């Protein structure tokens, strides 16, 4: 079902986006979570701050704690055009221009009152839970937060898949840390005793939602694709990547989403964009790298206006590669959390990333690979040009490279990005024409 806000019959103005029921559901979930987070003085809930890749939401919920994700706050602030001011504030306080802009947006936000999107201050965390899954900056970020909050910190060290695979040894190592370090730290912070059966329940709920998410992501194999797996995809992964995995709310969200996508398939419709259904699909792309958040709609428009649809993306795998078969498993709760952390995209080495992108190129019958290289994200950016060349070589499809940033508005040059994208699309056209002629 398509619902337009605020007037169902009027065509959307450039400022009001077309929304579907699942979008409204997610919006309401996020709003409720921020109300809970900013209401801890009244509701007495304890708070964990943690990150998206390797997010242990089910475990956090076992202790009745709330999950606050600084990355998500930075993204929210990026989309609300607040991150620029926050970043300047952080730079004023001595953080270099080259530091990850999520970090600076977060620190700047704290310096300016730490206000959540509902306008109320976010609580001090009772525990900083760091699942280290490939991004070194996370460690430094929490170091800064610990300094600020003087609260307990616990780190789950997830070994990097440097050799391209996870071993039993790695898995045991993570499970041991969960038992010896993480769970006791959560118990201390919350005063709640760990109950493994409660964890199993949540994991069972997670797996249901994960099935539906995969179904949605894989719908992009169809032509036309009923979804955009990057610009739409970042919303689809929202609940599972954040504070909702393992909740009935998330399961309900994915049930709604799946029904909507099934309906779009049945009606032969393309993805919903902020300006309504995408009409023609001339280019099918695989995208590597996170999106730009400060000019998100402008960025997306550059694609749908040209008939470019993203059929698969690596960014939507930073919180787990469910489409490659991983499911949270109630029968092996701690082991499955270990496998989850080991398998997230940020913990993959370069050859694994190349292999995954190549599979996507083939499975989703893409016309090319586009890399959005993020200025302030070394974890993602290192090696991307090599990735592009390798994919070009293996698939014979053209690649393209654009450069933007996560939440620093100064590094999004619309004219340049548009110029590159249009050139790229025309290049694909030209290649097609020569292929047909030959």
């Amino acid at each position, binding site marked *: 079902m398509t619902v337009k806000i605020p007037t169902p019959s009027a065509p959307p103005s450039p400022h009001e986006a077309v929304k579907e029921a699942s979008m409204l559901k997610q919006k309401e979930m996020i709003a409720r979570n921020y109300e809970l987070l900013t209401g801890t003085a009244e509701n007495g809930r304890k708070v964990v701050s943690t990150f998206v890749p390797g997010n242990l939401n089910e475990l956090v919920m076992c202790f009745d704690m709330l999950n606050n994700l600084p990355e998500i706050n930075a993204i929210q602030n990026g989309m609300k055009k607040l991150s620029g001011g926050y970043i300047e504030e952080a730079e004023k306080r001595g953080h270099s221009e080259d530091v990850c802009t999520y970090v600076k947006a977060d620190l700047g936000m704290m310096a300016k009152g730490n206000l959540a999107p509902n306008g109320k201050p976010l609580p001090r965390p009772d525990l900083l839970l760091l699942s280290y899954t490939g991004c070194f900056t996370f460690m430094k970020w929490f170091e800064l937060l610990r300094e600020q909050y003087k609260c307990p910190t616990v780190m789950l060290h997830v070994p990097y898949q440097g050799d391209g695979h996870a071993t039993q040894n790695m898995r045991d190592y993570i499970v041991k840390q969960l038992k010896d370090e993480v769970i006791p730290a959560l118990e201390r912070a919350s005063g709640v005793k760990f109950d493994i059966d409660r964890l199993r329940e949540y994991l069972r709920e997670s797996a249901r939602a994960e099935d539906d998410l995969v179904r949605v992501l894989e719908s992009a194999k169809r032509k036309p694709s009923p979804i955009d797996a990057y610009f739409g995809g970042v919303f689809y992964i929202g609940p599972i990547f954040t504070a909702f995995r393992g909740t009935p709310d998330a399961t309900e969200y994915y049930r709604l989403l799946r029904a909507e996508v099934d309906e779009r398939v049945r009606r032969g419709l393309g993805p919903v964009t902020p300006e309504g259904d995408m009409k023609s699909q001339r280019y099918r792309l695989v995208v590597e790298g996170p999106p730009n958040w400060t000019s998100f709609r402008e960025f997306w428009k550059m694609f749908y206006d040209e008939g470019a649809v993203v059929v698969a993306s690596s960014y939507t795998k930073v919180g787990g590669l469910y489409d490659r078969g991983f499911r949270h498993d109630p029968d092996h709760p701690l082991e499955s959390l270990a496998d989850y952390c080991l398998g997230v995209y940020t913990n993959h080495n370069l050859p694994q990333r190349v292999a995954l992108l190549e599979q996507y190129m083939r499975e989703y019958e893409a016309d090319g690979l586009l890399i959005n290289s993020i*200025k302030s994200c070394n974890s993602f950016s290192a090696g991307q*040009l090599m990735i592009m*060349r390798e994919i*070009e070589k293996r698939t014979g499809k*053209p*690649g393209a*490279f*654009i*450069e933007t940033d996560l939440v620093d508005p100064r*590094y999004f*040059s619309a*004219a*340049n*990005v548009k*110029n*590159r994208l*249009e*050139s790229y699309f*025309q*290049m694909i056209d*030209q*290649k097609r024409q*020569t292929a047909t002629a030959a």
Partner: protein
Amino acid sequence: MNCYIGIDLGSTTTKSVVMDDGGQVLGRGITNSRSNYDTAAAVSKQEALIDARFTLLRRGLEGAPSLKGKVDAFLGDLERHFRHVQFLEQLDDLEQTARRNGRGLRFAGQEQALGEALGEVFRRLREESEALFAPGARRRSDFFRDIAGSRFMALAEPLCKEAGLSFDLMLNVYDKSIIEVENRPPSGAMQGKFLRALELALGAGGGAGDAVAHPVRAALEIPLEEAYVVGTGYGRVRLPFPKEHIRSEILCHGLGAHIMYDGTRTVLDIGGQDTKAIQVDKEGIVENFQMNDRCAAGTGRYLGYVADEMKMGLHELGPLAMKATKTLRINSTCTVFAGAELRDRLALGDKREDILAGLHRAIILRAMSIISRSGGIRDQFTFTGGVAKNEAAVRELRKLVKENYGDVTININPDSIYTGALGGAAFARRAVQA
């Protein structure tokens, strides 16, 4: 006859190329981009059509026995007169506009004095224009704004002093007026100007008479039909064309370079605000490209900034750098930092030419890095854009190409500034003929 037109709206200049049915270039036109792309496109297109007309005249006159061996001289004469007629027409427009802008409340009490001064400045400008367009005279620029502007300032200042008028006031009127004149679409009537120029040329040359006038009139009567126009460059979205008439400048540059040199596999274009490295296949189809996009360091604008800092003309930089006895190392490719480094070096007593050699090397090093990101240099290598006209930049490029890629054929066309427009014209021709 059918004409296929490509227009490249760059950040500094706007270029047009007119192509005929057979793919031959008939004419090229260039103008400054101003802040008004519509007018820039119209002016450059008109200039290209004027140039095309000269090509037709040449074709017509090549058979005229009385001009045997003198076609070039005659056409040179004709063009000189044509430009002069055109200049006087624009000067009239500027004068009327300035007189209009010199009236009103702000000028209360001074209107008459201002009007008289303007009249005198323009009288002298007209008088001087004879010499400006005399045989063998060299003009620093062919853009009306440049020619009229510098002389206007020079003439107006002493006149204002004499009349007890504020020079700033006069400048203000000029600035406002030149913008209006530049942004007015060009007047279409070329025929009349050509005939007037013909009269003048015949009068001056004497004797040739009908034997020349006849083929000239015949060439002037060939209709130039715009069969298809393709726009490219940064201003392309501003062009009043449907979307299918717009091509990315990457594709246009790739194809344009291929048309100029069909062995081209790698293209480097250093323009006013970006540097592009493009890889093309044997048909001129783009395979890969890279460009600067977070920062304009190392683009043509860098040299423009350096020229301003050194109080030199952009075209004087290259020749001075060629006189260097050593190349100083300039670390920063940041335009603004390079300015600081430049002043620092000057303060330390380094020679201007040596510093300039270093700055040219810095810009080329930056380009080399973009090239390597696009996949490196393959034989043949074609260098285009405004910076390709700079001999010092070219010298550094040759050195660095040799060091990094060995013996590679390097193509630099004197008309390389038209590469994008040429590709655009070829796309226009393909759109109709395909």
